[in-house]
């Protein structure tokens, strides 16, 4: 049963990719893709329920042997524990909803079999990543999801821009992967194994030697660089906004709910190592906080609905990384869970809007859609409320948990960066809502005629996601708020993110008790900030872009331009990194490869021909002469042999 979870998506991918192709109607490829995923989800449930009923203890499921070289081995073993169980449900569950939705979204596209095949392949790779018991199997999944991301971003490959965006995603990921690989190498060198379960047993059983302790800082740093690439942190986040060139379901599944969370998943898997390396944790927390704030500021002035959501994703990922950095791994994973729900909801809702607007994505041309698309409006409203942390919805619980832990784990500065990012989040999300659904409709006559609600295939999954966004938060209610059960999720994940004994002295501030009033105070500040920010956004954009907004843009035109052009980061990278590399490659090719190396190789050949020409003039061509020489030589040889 366990194997079905992984292999059903693979089967779907193969059937769609190799068998179905263009020969059947599009609906069939959609059905195959969605059915594979829904089947996988039910298999996942079938595995998860007995697993939790049995106490949720970690199980290693033995697969086949793979690599073995001396003492190094990396077999296909799969780890089923609370963390991977949760992830598999998220991936298959939200993945199924997105697959169902995608059937409606891709209805008018050609070659949908490619789309569903890649999407299924992606889920397969993601499950490999999630379930892998050692770093190399996880790396297969890591690279595999990067590949599928590339394939899907460049799905409409006829456009050069899309293809370039796909390549950018893959290449930037690769840069992060260097870090990941170095991390794997170092882990093997200092610990002798790359298996997660073995590492955990080693650290908790025998403790860590001082040499290993020092190495752990480097290992965790290297792995974190890999996470930066995959989870779009500074400075490797640049691929995510460009990845919006792909179809919206892709953005929802890959760049919101699953692939980008791989870095956080990896760090949580190795939480025991990260606890042992407080130096790296400082860097992790700083990068996470900086990313959260940085991306949130860019999102303030974006006009493309998907770009706003993309930067929002980068920002929320920054929150998750921040949580890992301050030692609140379960908080980070909980935010991962809630974020998957409401970000997928937001992306799919945006997709509905885009489809209704005939693939126009500029918010300045939208407006007043709430009367044309009531269902989409309601679910988007719920999604926005969730993400800004409206009290009672899921985002509130998860984000506040992170901010609280940021204060006690990282100090006021980190908390402030997070809080400012939350303010920006509230602002730009409410702005998005206002510009899209409220106010007068600004689109042209033609588009307005065709505005209508989407089919049930599309708003059905949205409703489910909206319900999840509302209720999932109650899994982790903090103690200070009266509620029947507290911190369910933290307790659930506790065995996975246990802290090793040696590390406990560095993290006493995490485990100490604090007055409830402090937590309430921080909570109150962030809620108040959210309300103020939202009110500001409503006032500026409630009826479309107001003159006040325009005046503000002119007043602060310097900052506005900086933000609108994403801090010119892409241009800086292009000028200082890409161009020099291209120049160097050109030089290597023209001079070193063509002139020098080819010259040497051809030269050797010519030398041989020359020598051959010198020696060949002895041949007379007559068979008799040849025979005679043969015999004489034979005789001499025999003589030598005998005597």
């Amino acid at each position, binding site marked *: 049963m366990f194997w079905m979870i992984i292999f059903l998506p693979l089967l779907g991918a193969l059937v769609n990719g190799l068998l179905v192709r263009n020969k059947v109607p599009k609906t069939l490829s959609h059905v195959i893709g969605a059915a594979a995923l829904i089947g996988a989800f039910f298999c996942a449930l079938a595995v998860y329920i007995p697993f939790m009923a049995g106490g949720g203890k970690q199980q290693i499921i033995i697969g086949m042997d793979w690599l073995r070289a001396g003492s190094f081995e990396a077999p296909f073993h799969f780890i089923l524990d609370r963390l991977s169980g949760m992830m598999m449900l998220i991936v298959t569950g939200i993945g199924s909803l997105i697959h169902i939705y995608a059937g409606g979204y891709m209805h008018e596209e050609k070659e949908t079999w490619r789309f569903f095949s890649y999407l299924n392949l992606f889920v397969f790779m993601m499950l490999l990543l999630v379930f892998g018991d050692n770093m190399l199997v996880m790396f297969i999944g890591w690279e595999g999801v990067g590949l599928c991301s590339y394939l899907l971003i460049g799905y409409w490959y006829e456009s050069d821009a899309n293809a370039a965006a796909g390549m950018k995603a893959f290449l930037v990921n690769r840069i992060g992967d260097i870090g990941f690989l170095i991390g794997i190498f170092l882990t093997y060198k200092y610990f002798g194994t790359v298996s997660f379960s073995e590492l955990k047993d080693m650290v908790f059983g025998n403790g860590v030697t001082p040499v290993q302790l020092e190495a752990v800082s480097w290992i965790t740093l290297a792995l974190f660089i890999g996470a930066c690439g995959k989870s779009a942190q500074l400075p490797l986040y640049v691929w995510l906004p460009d990845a919006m060139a792909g179809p919206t379901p892709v953005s929802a599944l890959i760049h919101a709910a699953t692939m980008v969370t791989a870095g956080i998943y990896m760090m949580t898997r190795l939480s025991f190592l990260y606890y042992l390396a407080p130096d790296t944790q400082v860097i992790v927390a700083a990068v996470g906080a900086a990313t959260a704030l940085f991306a949130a500021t860019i999102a303030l002035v974006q006009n493309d609905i998907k770009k706003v959501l993309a930067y929002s994703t980068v920002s929320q990922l920054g929150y998750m990384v921040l949580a890992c950095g301050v030692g609140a791994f379960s908080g980070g994973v909980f935010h991962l869970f809630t974020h998957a729900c409401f970000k997928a909801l937001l992306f799919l809702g945006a997709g509905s809007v885009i489809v209704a607007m005939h693939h126009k994505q500029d918010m300045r041309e939208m407006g007043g859609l709430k009367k044309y698309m009531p269902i989409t409006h309601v679910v988007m409203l719920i999604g926005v409320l969730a993400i800004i942390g409206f009290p009672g919805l899921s985002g509130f619980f998860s984000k506040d948990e992170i901010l609280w832990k940021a204060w006690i784990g990282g100090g006021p500065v980190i908390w402030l960066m997070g809080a400012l990012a939350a303010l920006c989040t509230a602002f730009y999300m409410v702005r998005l809502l206002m510009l899209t659904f409220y106010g007068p409709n600004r689109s042209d006559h033609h588009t307005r005629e065709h505005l209508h609600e989407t089919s049930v295939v599309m708003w059905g999954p949205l409703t489910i996601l909206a319900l999840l966004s509302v209720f999932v938060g109650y899994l982790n209610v903090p103690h200070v708020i009266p509620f029947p059960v507290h911190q369910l999720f933290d307790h659930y994940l506790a065995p996975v993110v246990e802290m090793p004994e040696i590390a406990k002295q560095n993290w006493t501030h995490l485990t100490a008790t604090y007055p409830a009033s402090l937590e309430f105070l921080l909570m109150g500040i962030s809620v108040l900030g959210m309300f103020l920010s939202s009110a500001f956004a409503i006032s500026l954009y409630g009826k479309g872009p107001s003159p006040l907004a325009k005046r503000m843009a002119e007043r602060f035109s310097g900052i506005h331009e900086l933000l609108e052009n994403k801090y010119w980061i892409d241009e800086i990278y292009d000028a200082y990194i890409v161009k020099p590399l291209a120049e160097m490659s050109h030089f290597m090719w023209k001079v070193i490869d063509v002139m020098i190396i080819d010259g040497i190789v051809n030269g050797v050949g010519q030398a041989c021909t020359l020598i051959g020409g010198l020696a060949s003039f002895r041949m007379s061509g007559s068979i008799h002469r040849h*025979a005679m020489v043969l015999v004489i030589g034979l005789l001499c040889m025999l003589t030598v042999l005998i005597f």
Partner: protein
Amino acid sequence: MVPVDMYLVLATVMFTCGIVGIMARRNLIMVLMSIELMLNAVNIVFVAASRAVNNLDGQIMVFFIITVAACEAAVGLAMVIALYRKYGRIDTNFLRMLRG
């Protein structure tokens, strides 16, 4: 039982005939026939040796040598035919194109 060295002497004589044939004959086909003679001489040595040390490997070797000889004769004769078609004669003194 005939002593082995007599077989060897016989083989040597046959081999020498072959060598003389190669060097003395101008006709290409005669050269090929002389080569066959030489191969047969070697075959005799192998079978004799096999008998002397009571091992069958020598006869296996003969089997393969005969196979190879057959192939070589076939290909050689094909070449003779081709050469004859092109030049009209198969005189070894004339066929010296591989010179230099």
